[in-house]
């Protein structure tokens, strides 16, 4: 069953089309890796899912609900993290999460749970503006995970983390559907990263969906199309280059 589905979803900024005719199928309980080079339209798509920006054309539903009618109901179900971490620098990590917790109407323990999940517990009383980039990223993630929402939308959550942090966050995301019943939509511009986390993959380039399916499907499809398959990063790059070449004609 698909918990998020888009139907010819399109977003244009003036004459520039950032997301074009997108048909995504995100299965309930899966980790869906949303892959694409910078500027492909990943954040724009996610922003539409969160009601931050309105589609120009097409539609989507999340758990059978739509914007703007069911805005509150949708946002109650989604924990999200878009682009750069967003927080209040004058508040501590814990105070930041407490604000989110209160708005969501969650019990007190949720804050400690989110701090624990993201490894922020030892620095919970430090001002968020004094956090390192990695800690800020974790705080953003904690703000998404708080209350363990059934849907997580995470936009490049490992950006700015050191290799150890990247590994930890990846393992965390990978483990989420086992820890509790949830669906994760996570974006990245690295296939190597998506490969380690995702059950399903969607590849986006210039707003167009080049591929959607499992890692296995990707390999066989790439093989049939004559792309290199020994190294998946190369497969991805070759697909994007091929698409760019076709597009520039």
């Amino acid at each position, binding site marked *: 069953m698909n918990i998020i589905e888009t139907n010819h979803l399109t977003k244009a900024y003036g004459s520039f089309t950032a997301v074009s005719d997108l048909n995504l199928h995100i299965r309930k309980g899966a980790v869906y890796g949303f892959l694409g080079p910078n500027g492909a339209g990943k954040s724009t798509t996610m922003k539409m899912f*969160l*009601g*931050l*920006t*309105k589609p120009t054309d097409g539609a989507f539903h999340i758990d059978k609900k739509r914007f703007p009618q069911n*805005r*509150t*109901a949708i*946002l*109650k179900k*989604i924990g*999200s993290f*878009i682009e*750069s*971490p*967003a*927080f*209040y*620098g*004058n*508040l501590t990590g814990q*105070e930041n999460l*407490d*604000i*989110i917790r*209160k*708005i*969501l109407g969650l019990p007190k323990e949720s804050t400690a749970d989110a701090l624990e999940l993201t490894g922020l517990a030892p620095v919970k009383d430090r*001002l*968020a*503006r004094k956090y390192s980039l990695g800690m800020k990223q974790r705080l953003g993630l904690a*703000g998404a995970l708080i209350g363990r929402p059934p849907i997580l939308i995470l936009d490049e959550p490992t950006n700015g983390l050191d290799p150890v942090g990247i590994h930890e966050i990846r393992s965390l995301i990978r483990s989420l559907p086992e820890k509790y019943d949830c669906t994760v939509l996570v974006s990245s511009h690295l296939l190597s990263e998506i490969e380690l986390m995702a059950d399903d993959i969607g590849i986006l380039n210039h707003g167009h969906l080049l591929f959607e399916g499992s890692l296995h499907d990707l390999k066989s499809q790439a093989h049939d199309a004559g792309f290199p398959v020994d190294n998946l990063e190369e497969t991805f790059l070759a697909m994007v280059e091929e698409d760019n070449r076709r597009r520039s004609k």
Partner: protein
Amino acid sequence: MVPKIEYKKLKRTGYVPAFLLAALLAGAFPVVNMAVRKESFLSLGGEPLSVLLNANWQMMAMLNILLIVCGACMMYHTEYTDNGMQKMELLPVRQTSLFLGKFLIASIMTAVMLSIEFSVLAGCAVYWFSDSRLNPMILICHLSFSFIMLLPTIILMLLIAQAFRNMWISLGIGVILVFTFSILPQEQLFFALCPFSAPYQLLDNVHADGHVGLFLEIAALETLLFALTEFICLKIRRNFS
């Protein structure tokens, strides 16, 4: 609940201390004035509170307005610096209720500031005009009138502050408005009724002109109008981003 959240966001920003400090600073005007030129004021006759207000309110009101400008900028500065506002947009809470929460907090702090100032004025009346039979009801009327005259300024300034990510732009606009309206002819009813200008008015003088009802109605109308403008702005922003 939302006002409590908005209040929590202001922790460590110096928002509350700023209002308290401004109240003490404004309160210092009548005290210093009386300490230095006691005789000239005592010889004026009339209600002590009116004498004190006539002598000091222009400066005190300007300080109050400047603080409202700074307060609004501080509120949105905390929202914009580390993008906290964006997180709010991703949560199941209405942007309009967050805005109204801010308005409520700013209004409460303004009321606190005015209460301190009027307490100092009352203290001056009792201390220097020793025969004073100061009527607390009159004091409360003056305070309430001044408070209501400030409401349109508070909400307009919040509207300005939320429009610009860069606090210095909002602050600049606010300060320019403060000084523009302070030099416009206050005797003209039209200008006197404007935000940034109405707070200089004194209940005594407005009452003498028989305009109390008009001033209250216009203040209420302006406040509603600016609130409505904000709601429309938020709607437009959502639909066109």
